[in-house]
């Protein structure tokens, strides 16, 4: 990142911090018009610095080695596929996975935020899934919070010398799960329950999302590992190009 770029990211980050005593809330696919306008703006501002940092980080990766483009495209495509599949879960309702773990592990969390926001836009505009007004909140949970957790867990596992595929599994699965926890919190902040306040309604929303999402998180972990095995077998030069493997 050049000095100018860094400054830009910092300024937006400050704006994000100023704009809020940041309530810890964000939601995966909160539907169009379901958050009060002020909160839509708030989440949008909160997500903005990450998007900017992501843009610069993608730019840097491509400049460093053009071969990164293929892997970036594949990670984006992975999110496209994974988040378009509605999977039945043990609670008798359907949900879908996020697919952001793979990209976060490969390129770092901020780069994925760009890929995630593309998918969210596609779904918000064409599918009435999520929404333009709630884009900020959805971006924050799916394209910022989830990837950051995935990335953190992967790095932690590496430090602890956990088997690589196990780390990939844990990172993807927990990142997916956390996305929905953040969504629950975002909804809870917008709709505090009369009895229990924000925490009361957070528990309620978590009760809806978490059990549904748990099997899907496992599924996402498994799929991410499968893709990773393929990449390790056939795309070693590209993995080295993005700095995932020592070459």
């Amino acid at each position, binding site marked *: 990142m050049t000095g100018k770029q860094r400054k830009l990211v910092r300024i937006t980050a400050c704006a994000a911090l100023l704009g809020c005593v940041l309530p810890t809330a964000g939601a995966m696919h909160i539907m169009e018009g379901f958050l009060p306008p002020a909160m839509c703006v708030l989440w949008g501002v909160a997500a903005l610095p990450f998007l900017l940092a992501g843009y610069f980080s993608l730019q840097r990766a491509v400049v460093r080695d053009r071969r990164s483009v293929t892997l970036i495209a594949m990670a984006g*495509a992975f999110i496209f596929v994974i988040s378009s599949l509605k999977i039945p879960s043990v609670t008798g309702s359907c949900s879908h996975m996020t697919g952001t773990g793979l990209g976060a592990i490969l390129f770092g969390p901020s780069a994925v935020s760009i890929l995630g926001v593309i998918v969210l836009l596609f779904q918000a505009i064409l599918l009435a899934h999520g929404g333009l007004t709630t884009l900020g909140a959805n971006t924050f949970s799916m394209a910022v919070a989830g990837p950051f957790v995935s990335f953190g867990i992967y790095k932690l596992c590496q430090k602890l010398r956990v088997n690589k595929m196990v780390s990939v599994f844990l990172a993807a699965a927990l990142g997916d799960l956390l996305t929905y926890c953040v969504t629950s919190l975002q909804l809870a902040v917008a709709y505090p329950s009369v009895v229990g306040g924000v925490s009361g309604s957070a528990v309620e929303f978590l009760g809806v999302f978490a059990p549904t999402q748990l099997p899907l998180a496992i599924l996402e972990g498994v799929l991410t590992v499968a893709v990773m095995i393929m990449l390790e077998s056939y795309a070693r030069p590209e993995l080295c190009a993005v700095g995932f493997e020592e070459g």
Partner: protein
Amino acid sequence: MTRKNKSLLIVLLLLCVVLVAGPVFALRGAEFGGSDDAGSIKVAEITGEDYEPWFTPVFEQLLGGELPGELESLLFCVQTGIGVGVIAFFLGRFVERKKQETARGQEKEK
């Protein structure tokens, strides 16, 4: 791909099928609605009234109503298709490249 990885991959894919198919057979007659909808029902429960979204999706405004279900599934398929297309294209290239590399390596040894 090593033999070990190959069998691991097969096991993983089978596991996916089990994870997806399991609930469908275990919970016969369940509705399998979207959990996003379950979320909005919960909102109604907590606030005690039906929440009126203050903004409707742009696409629905243009259409003057909801997108028909079949068309929605079409668009979801388009999304999946784009993703699968990109992944398959690059993966195919990678696999072929690896094959040629090994073939070239063997030739040199001769």
